[in-house]
């Protein structure tokens, strides 16, 4: 047991830290388009520095970093309050799926532009009728000359309007059990059959989109992992997403807690026992999240696969972030009711934390069924 960094890990951290110090692009500009361009530039810069594909094998242009190095990198990014790269989904999901299930031609075609942020990727899994029950999705792909025609609606798609490619799961065979008739495609977003509408959240911002496919064409060579294997390929993708979430979350919460501590003092509440007790619960929860992530990573290094324990981390994080932002608004009093202020925005935004990326109910199901071995109901 060693919860500190060893010599080589420390060296790696120092390398990341000094690179970030030298290259941090400063605060993100206002406005969605400007911010996205900024992040695209930032990713290019990261890629030039060799940091964009930190978890990717070297043969595909990545850094081939160990799990620990990835965690260090995420922590340092959060610590430096560095912006996210523009192509998050390409880096965390798209690339890994192509590397795992794609053909050599597909790797050749897609991987480098993901790293360089030249081509942005988005995800087309969720549908209005298929949230937790992903396998029930209805978007269908019908065989056409040299490819497939896709019709249906996807939702909760981030950066769809900036994206060149969409990871799309569609039903190619309606006559087999629901998990078996799905196929995984990479769909070109720049075509007439694809319509994108912004989806405004309760925060007033449009972080996501709805995407409508009307006989959108996908050539055969953009099918990944074989016809009818879409469920299996998608699940791999989701596991990568959840594992990718780990590292930085606790650091981000910890940074927020430091800001919250300042806020408590600014409002002269540092001697209020109820506030102190709520702060202590958050501090303890944050430390448990951080340590749980380290334990899960250690286990993953041994077994090679991310375990279902990641579901606890997701659940912990959602709970923490909701409590934390609500406490901030409670402390702010009437100011915590003002529209558009940072904490108010975050408090509202946090309500989605227990829904996005798997609802807390689904996380509990996974823990019950896959960790505790309880019978499943479905």
């Amino acid at each position, binding site marked *: 047991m060693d919860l500190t960094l060893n010599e080589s890990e420390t060296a790696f951290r120092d390398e990341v830290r000094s690179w970030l110090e030298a290259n941090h692009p400063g605060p993100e500009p206002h406005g969605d388009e400007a911010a996205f361009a900024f992040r695209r530039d930032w990713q290019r810069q990261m890629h030039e520095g060799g940091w964009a594909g930190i978890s990717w094998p070297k043969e595909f242009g990545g850094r081939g970093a160990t799990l620990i190095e990835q965690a260090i990198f995420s922590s340092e990014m959060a610590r430096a309050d560095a912006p996210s790269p523009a192509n998050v989904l390409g880096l965390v999901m798209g690339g890994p799926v192509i590397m795992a299930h794609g053909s050599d031609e597909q790797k050749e075609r897609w991987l480098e532009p993901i790293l360089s942020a030249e081509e942005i990727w988005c995800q087309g899994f969720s549908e209005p009728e*298929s949230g937790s029950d992903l396998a029930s999705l209805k978007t269908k792909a019908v065989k056409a000359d040299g490819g497939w025609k896709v019709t249906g609606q996807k939702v909760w798609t981030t950066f769809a309007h900036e994206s060149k490619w969409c990871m799309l799961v569609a039903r190619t065979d309606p006559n087999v059990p629901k998990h078996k008739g799905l196929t995984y495609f990479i769909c070109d977003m720049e075509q007439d059959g694809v319509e994108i509408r912004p*989806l405004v*959240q*309760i925060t007033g911002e449009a972080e996501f989109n709805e995407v409508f496919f009307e006989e959108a064409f996908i050539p055969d060579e953009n099918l990944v992992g074989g016809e009818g294997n879409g469920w299996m390929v998608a699940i791999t993708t989701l596991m990568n997403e959840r594992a990718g979430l780990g590292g930085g979350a606790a650091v981000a919460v910890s940074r927020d807690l430091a800001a919250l501590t300042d806020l408590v003092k600014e409002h002269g509440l540092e001697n209020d026992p109820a506030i102190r007790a709520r702060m202590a619960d958050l501090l303890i929860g944050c430390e448990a999240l951080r340590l749980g992530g380290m334990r899960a990573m250690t286990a993953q290094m041994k077994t090679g696969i991310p375990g279902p324990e990641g579901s606890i981390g997701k659940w912990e994080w959602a709970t923490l972030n909701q409590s934390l932002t609500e406490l901030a*608004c409670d402390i702010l009093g009437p100011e915590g009711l*003002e529209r558009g202020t940072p904490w*108010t925005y975050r408090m509202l935004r946090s309500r989605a934390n*227990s829904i996005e990326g798997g609802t807390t109910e689904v996380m509990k199901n996974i823990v019950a069924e896959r960790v505790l071995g309880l019978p499943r109901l*479905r």
Partner: protein
Amino acid sequence: MRFDFDDEQAEIKETARQFLAARFTPAVVRELAEGNRYDDALWAEVSELGWPGIAIAEEHGGQGLGMVELIVLCEELGYACAPLPFLANACAGLVLEGAGSDEQKRGWLAGIASGEGRGAFGDPDVLIDAEGAACAVVYGDDGEVRLVDLAEVDPDPLELIDQTRRYAKPLGDDIGEVLPGDFGAATDRILVAVAAELVGIGQRAMDMAVEYAKEREQFGRPIGAYQGVSHACAKMLYDVEEARSLTYAAAWAADAEPESLPLAAAMAKARASEAAWDVCKAAIQVHGGIGFTWEHDLHFLLKRARADARLFGAPGQHKERVAALSGLG
């Protein structure tokens, strides 16, 4: 001993529910909230029904009914999530009637009761429904309550997350004239009115969650068949019904047993604040992603619940008062 509405009160409730459902359709609420504005015609219609003066004495132009009748309306206005300057006007009326001088009452109560010369309501943090109002009743930082002629001032608007109501920055303590009377009971009545609105908000969010849980299917079943959802909905009922019992009882105490009002009002406001907020959050969770979108109506309820819950004293303050009034000193 009989704990329900009498026939007349039940009729007011039913009439209000139907009237508000017809006028404040989801589309209307949305349109008004997105513009953070009111529809004067709707206020005129409500005034025509005598709602603004429901609890104001007949001598001052009101209907001379009690707190129970007032909270029936507050609950239904919460249920409808209606953008209307009703609550602040009612609060102004309660305080002015309770603590104003005869002259102050003569000068302003009739307008409040008829809805033609509305009252705004404020505290050191926020001023509610000032635009278009004739006067404001304002709690000051110095422990006094003042009456302000709004013809003389032009408050700065304040944008809160709750867009179904209009807020402005506080006026400060250096304008207006102090109300001479004891406003303690009126303050408690205000808490009960807000609690009633919170009960209505909670009830509406629960109704929406339950309806959705019956319709939405995942894994081949309505999601309401899963205890993860159905038990959450049961908890909503538990919360709303506790808040409702306490609120109705506090309204009754205001009318019939004023010595019980301070404790009853503190309990009602504390419980209703937590209930409505928890129910709205849980209703979003039951809805999943769709409940988090602007196009769904839940967030108007969520935000109004949050504002009502945190304004007029946060739950912790009222719990402190409950402890103090229950033998803990």
